[in-house]
């Protein structure tokens, strides 16, 4: 493989994924673009239903069709557009070069297959391992992800493993072919906090060792802060803000991001009410013209209900979807650059 370390590993351009439901067309992902460099970690945050998971399922074309459909856009992975590849070719990429970890380790392992067999399936399929090789590799992977006594535990069934161990198995599976991109879809949501920290630490370590790029989907801002280089904030199928992680946390340029940051509980404040963004996310099947966040925004003005906001560049790597992006950015203490992108 050519060394493209300075290039983008993944480039998503104007991705639109719509679902045709009885309620009308749901624009789950609407005009989403982003890039991911080799070896970097990208965080995608947003409330439930904001299109985080759909974006990532679209990348490896696992949108259930019908009712879902990738309407337009490009997903350039290592120079080739995944959306125009034949099915056979995309299957060779799934698991081999782009691997996924799912939210609920309880249900993402086949209850009727031994752990070892599920791990072996990966390498036999993609790396052409013999049974012997695949078995040894499976044991090695289980040891890598920190399953104690891996050789004895490999022939257990998933129900004999705890949630955290199962998530480790999922990670072992995902990494067993040394993929270039790992998509982790809320990998810690279903786990308790101590296990959560262990799993995140594990992903971090393995990422450092293998140089895999990671897309981390989460609704936990704390996780994003500790794990990622770049963050995308999604709302109603759109990217609301996009920035380097450090910048996003210190100088948010979007009222929605500000709201999210304010609603993180502060352990030092012993009393007082926890802030929450008023209202509920909109019904994406029936979006009104104007900004989808307008009804919940504390900075809303008349124009927000009327016109869809522009995607404003605030800094080198910082974009925000808001009519008042520059003002919000300035209020956070940032100095917006002169360029303006729509």
């Amino acid at each position, binding site marked *: 493989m050519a060394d493209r370390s300075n290039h983008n590993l993944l480039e998503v351009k104007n991705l639109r994924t719509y679902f045709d439901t009885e309620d009308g067309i749901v624009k789950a992902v609407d005009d989403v673009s982003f890039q991911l460099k080799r070896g970097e970690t990208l965080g995608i945050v947003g409330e439930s239903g904001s299109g985080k998971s759909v974006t990532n399922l679209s990348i490896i074309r696992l949108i259930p069709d019908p009712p879902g459909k990738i309407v337009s856009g490009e997903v350039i992975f290592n120079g080739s557009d995944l959306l125009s590849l034949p099915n056979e070719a995309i299957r060779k990429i799934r698991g*081999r070069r782009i691997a996924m970890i799912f939210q609920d380790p309880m249900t993402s*392992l*086949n209850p*009727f297959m031994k752990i070892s067999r599920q791990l072996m*399936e990966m390498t036999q*399929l993609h790396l052409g391992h013999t049974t012997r090789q695949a078995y040894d590799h499976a044991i090695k992977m289980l040891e890598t992800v920190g399953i104690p006594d891996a050789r004895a535990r490999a022939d257990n*069934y998933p*129900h004999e493993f705890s949630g955290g161990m199962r998530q480790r198995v999922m990670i072992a599976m995902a990494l067993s072919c040394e993929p270039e991109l790992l998509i982790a879809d809320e990998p810690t949501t279903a786990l308790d906090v101590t296990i959560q920290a262990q799993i995140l630490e594990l992903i971090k370590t393995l990422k450092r060792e293998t140089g895999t790029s990671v897309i981390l989907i989460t609704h936990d801002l704390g996780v994003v802060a500790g794990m990622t280089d770049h963050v995308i904030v999604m709302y109603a199928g759109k990217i609301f803000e996009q920035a380097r992680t450090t910048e996003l946390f210190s100088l948010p340029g979007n009222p929605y991001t500000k709201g999210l940051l304010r609603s993180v509980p502060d352990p030092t404040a012993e009393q007082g009410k926890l802030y929450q963004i008023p209202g509920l996310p909109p019904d994406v099947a029936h979006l009104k013209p104007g900004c989808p966040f307008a009804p919940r925004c504390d900075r809303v003005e008349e124009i927000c209900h009327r016109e869809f906001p522009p995607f404003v560049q605030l800094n080198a790597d910082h974009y925000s979807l808001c009519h008042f992006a520059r003002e919000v950015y300035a209020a956070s203490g940032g100095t917006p650059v002169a360029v303006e992108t729509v």
Partner: protein
Amino acid sequence: MVTQKSTDEQQDLIHTPPEVAIAEADVRPAEAGEFVRGTSLWRDAWRRLLKNKLAVFGLVVVVLITLASIAGPTLIKRTFGFTPDYIPTNDVKLIRSFPPFTGPDGEFSWAHPMGTDNAGRDQFARVLQGGQISLFVGIISTLVSLLIGVSYGAIAGYFGGRIDNVMMRLVDVLYSLPYIIVVIVLLSMFRSQTARGQLILLFIALGSVSWLTMARIVRGQVLSLKNQEFVLAARATGVSGARIIFRHLVPNTLGPVIVYATLTIPQIMLTEAFLSFLGFGVQAPLASWGSLAADGVQNIAIFPWQLIFPGVTMALTLFSLNFLGDGLRDALDPQMRTV
């Protein structure tokens, strides 16, 4: 539910649904030092089956009759020196059919515990040999129906949408045909010259009409399974559709499939008996319980044992298989029992 339950049984209820077992295993702290030995679904089911007296009775009877059918004719040959189709030729008597435990001269004899038939053949040996054929037809035809039904149902369920629609409407159409007539038409159209050929034809005919319910059961299972995350996870690892169906989904439908298969065997045996009774099924010199009963019914007034023994043996076997099937269903699908 019954008010009084033994602690053992309560324990049992706690363990029953696999999801509950999983949740429970997780609650236990991993570092407690005690190694969590999960009870497997199969061991659990086996324990429940052993508690069901009727099912155990069925299991024992089925095993005994199967063993007797397989080994019986050979043992009789060793002991008394005649095969099931041995016709005595040395004495020319007008009536050759003797009642049970009776020799040719009316004296008591152990040689023919079920008497003899019209030609003087030993009825006991004939019933055992007939058992071979009947069980064989039941099992092989069930396997045929299993093969067709499981593949068909799994494919329809997995692909869903229009493919599913077309495939299942075809099943509905086939369902609406009176299957016994379909079998009779099939058997008489492709009538085979040899007894063996006729037997194979019988397998195909019976198997190909009895897969419909199996297909529906498997489709239903697959429909609910395919939306589970492990299928998505398998797809995300690049596993092909066929492999997902047969490696990931079908094994997960095993419970209901086994139950239904055990209940299909007696059903098919009964149909076979019915067909043989009508003269469409097993042809002489092979015999099945159905064809023996058909022979016996002609002489029911004079030689009732010719009908009674094959009939009772078959009824006992069918009862036992049904008890076993019901027991298996209760054991493998505990949620149903509490309803």
